[in-house]
């Protein structure tokens, strides 16, 4: 299933292993926050507020993965892997982008 991910795949259809791998990259050093603040509603306003960020921070205190919870939450919209990859690339989180779409973002060496 992982191999069939394209930029048009809905985030909600991502498999467990892929989510796990993404959190390996995005959980450390609060990189998930960079992604979270860039997520927009279709209207263009930010989807998550500072108060929402605190809620996700609270999950960390419970030992849960904020990236996993973010993907669950964001997955309830019609957002696609392409949108996520664009955000990842804009923050130079290329390793994470590479997990989703290996061919589209060659790792710079």
């Amino acid at each position, binding site marked *: 299933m992982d191999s069939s991910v394209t930029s048009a795949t809905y985030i909600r259809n991502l498999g467990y292993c892929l989510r796990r791998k993404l959190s390996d990259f995005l959980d450390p050093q609060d990189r998930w926050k960079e992604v979270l603040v860039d997520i927009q509603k279709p209207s263009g306003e930010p989807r998550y507020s500072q108060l929402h960020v605190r809620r996700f921070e609270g999950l960390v205190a419970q030992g849960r993965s904020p990236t996993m919870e*973010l993907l669950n939450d964001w997955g*309830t*919209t019609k957002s696609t892997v392409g949108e996520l990859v664009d955000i990842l690339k804009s923050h130079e989180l290329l390793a994470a982008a590479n997990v989703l779409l290996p061919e589209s973002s060659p790792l710079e060496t």
Partner: protein
Amino acid sequence: VDLEKIPLVALNMSVRKKLGLYLNPKHTVAADWMALAEAMGFNYLEIKNYEVSKNPTCTVLEDWQARTTDTSVGKLLSMLSELDREDIVEDLRPLIDEDVRKYCANLKKK
């Protein structure tokens, strides 16, 4: 067909189970079964008590159709849209339409 006129009983078990798959998990920000229950008019204590239910989404749906007279498939769908759960509407629409079609066919037989 006008979905506003189709009662909730038209929805069979597989659709209800699927609704549970989408709504039972608690979300950090997005709407889950609690937000739906609130939209249906359940008060805080009622919602709090549904928490012990194994499948709160199913329980809430059943209680909603039992205690309110103006429930309908259309109303449920518009609530989900208002709660920004377009994912559910999109994914389950074919299943729901199929159940509604069966329900209407059964009505004609009688």
